């Protein structure tokens, strides 16, 4: 039992990170039909930017963190939207999805050639301490990740459902045509989701890099899992992506424990296929009425 709880908490911590990435993923999908194959790289890059500011510009860490995150949101929230999404969206979803694949390559190789091919340690705000009770060791960092991610997601959920701007954003996502008629600034709302996406990615990056180390190739796994989490949870719901992230994280952790470490990756993928075949709208997603 103690063992199981240890796996569970480790899984929830990684799952929280996947959830942060998955939520941004579903947000931009909803508002602009962008399947962002560079989502993992979005989580990888902020930490690299911060370290680059520390190492190359000699900025103190806190300043670098603020600047790095701001720079990232500007470049990959606003910049991504206007330079890649806007010119391509009229060509349809596929060219855009492929452009994000290319973008992933550019980000990854850019981080490697522009900064370092080596993993870098990333300062943690919390000590790497372990709480121990009833024979279970719980990492403080893991708990912190779960708490921060849940607070951030809860805040987002509150923003979307309880504030005027949030509801406008939802309307813009669900039916841009009608939203426009109702006088909602749809373009601004869509941009807002891109900024939120970049913000969540930066948060995930700062949370996870102390444990994962900052490295150009970190995005591959995170991207894949964010993808699975978004589909498993449901493509059109914030809480779906949260649940999907946590479920996938826990399942991955338990798969490593009780299935086979060399086939560990297969378990979430099989889950993905089953969900798609049985409940394609995701565990928590809304069913979309079939149109003729």
């Amino acid at each position: 039992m103690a063992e199981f709880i240890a796996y569970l908490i480790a899984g929830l911590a990684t799952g929280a990170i996947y959830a942060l990435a998955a939520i941004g993923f579903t947000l931009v999908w909803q508002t602009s039909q962008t399947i962002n194959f560079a989502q993992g790289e979005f989580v990888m890059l902020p930490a690299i930017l911060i370290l680059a500011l520390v190492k190359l510009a000699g900025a103190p860490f806190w300043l670098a963190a603020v600047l790095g995150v701001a720079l990232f949101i500007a470049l990959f929230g606003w910049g991504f939207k206007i330079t890649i999404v806007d010119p391509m969206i009229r060509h349809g979803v596929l060219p855009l999805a492929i452009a994000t694949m290319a973008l992933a390559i550019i980000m990854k190789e850019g981080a490697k050639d522009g900064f370092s091919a080596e993993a870098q340690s990333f300062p943690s705000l919390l000590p790497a301490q372990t709480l121990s009770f009833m024979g279970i060791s719980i990492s403080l960092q893991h708990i912190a990740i779960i708490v921060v991610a849940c607070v951030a997601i809860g805040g987002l959920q509150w923003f979307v459902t309880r504030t005027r701007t949030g509801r406008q954003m939802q309307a813009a996502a669900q039916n841009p045509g009608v939203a426009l008629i109702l006088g909602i600034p749809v373009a601004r709302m869509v941009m807002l989701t891109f900024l939120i996406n970049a913000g969540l990615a930066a948060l995930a990056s700062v949370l996870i890099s102390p444990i994962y180390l900052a490295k150009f190739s970190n995005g591959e796994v995170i991207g894949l899992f964010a993808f699975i989490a978004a589909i498993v949870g449901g493509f059109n719901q914030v809480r779906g992506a949260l649940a999907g992230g946590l479920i996938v994280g826990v399942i991955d952790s338990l798969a490593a424990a009780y299935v086979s470490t060399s086939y560990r990756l297969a378990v979430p993928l099989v889950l993905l296929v089953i969900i798609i075949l049985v409940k394609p709208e995701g565990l928590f997603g809304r069913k979309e009425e079939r149109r003729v």
Partner: protein
Amino acid sequence: MSDIPSFTGNVPSPARSFWRRTDGVLITLLVAAVLLWFVPAGMGRYGTYVLSLWLVTAIAVMGLNLTLGLAGLKSLAQAAFMGIGAYATALLTTKGGMGWLPAFAISGLLTFAVGLVLGFPALRVKAHYLAFVTLAFSTLIWLVLRNEQWLTGGVFGLSNIPRPTLFGMKLDGHLAFHRFVVVVTLILALALWWLIRSPWGRAFLALRENPVRAASLGINIRNYTLLAFAIGSAYAGFAGALYAPLVEFIDPSPFALSASFFLLLMVVAGGSGYQLGPFIGALLGVVLPEYLRVTGGLYLILFAAIVVALLIACPQGIMGLLERGWTAIRRRPAGRNLPVKESAL
């Protein structure tokens, strides 16, 4: 209303036959094959090898161009199918002691069959979900190739894959093997050319453009969807069956998910839906990196940036760009037999 012709009456005016029309694609394929037969004569092993690798990759891209570009099915497993073909051929010709030709045929049949099975989700789920299913499939295949060492050699791969001997000819040398690749590529390209111009090709296109309307015209969506997917996969299998003896060594890495992404980039960069697009796409994906190899790691960024720029400027890829240019020169309407749809995933 005397000017209304009778419906049942005969209306003469037999149209020009389809057969009489000159066909640019066919001519280009034949001329290119002849050139490629002779070009490498003075090129040395490396140049010849790159040309062969280009053609082999182009075969896999051709298959994906059929599934994606023509029938509109999004597959992220083309490299995995190539892996199945490559491993099947490698195992059959080394451990199985089989000749290359039967191994090639089996590789194609095997990938065709797997493609049929994997195509079923495509019927059940909405369009972009097929991409996710194939993404999962691709990674699962990679895991099997990596983990089942008793069969696939695992991370150490399979080495000493023999080059074929056909009709008593040993195709061991780089030039002989290259010419062999040229011939196989030509045969496969011609088969696809025929397929695309047959009623099947028209049905595939209808499937992509407007499946609802296609169904109302009696087009069997299920059969054509499965066939498009399976034939596309079989082409990946054929490519794999050539890749194994070309490199003489295989391990799981060239068949990973990122390689499937890369093949997809090539389809789009070359011009999705154009018959000659795959050759251009593979040229960009295989030959251009060789050319830029001196830039160290930077060429990947260059390649990706070219693709993004191309997609922004002309989502129909290089072929679309060429066609645009051609139209501008000739001032005649564009739109040949294999146009591109700008539609949702």
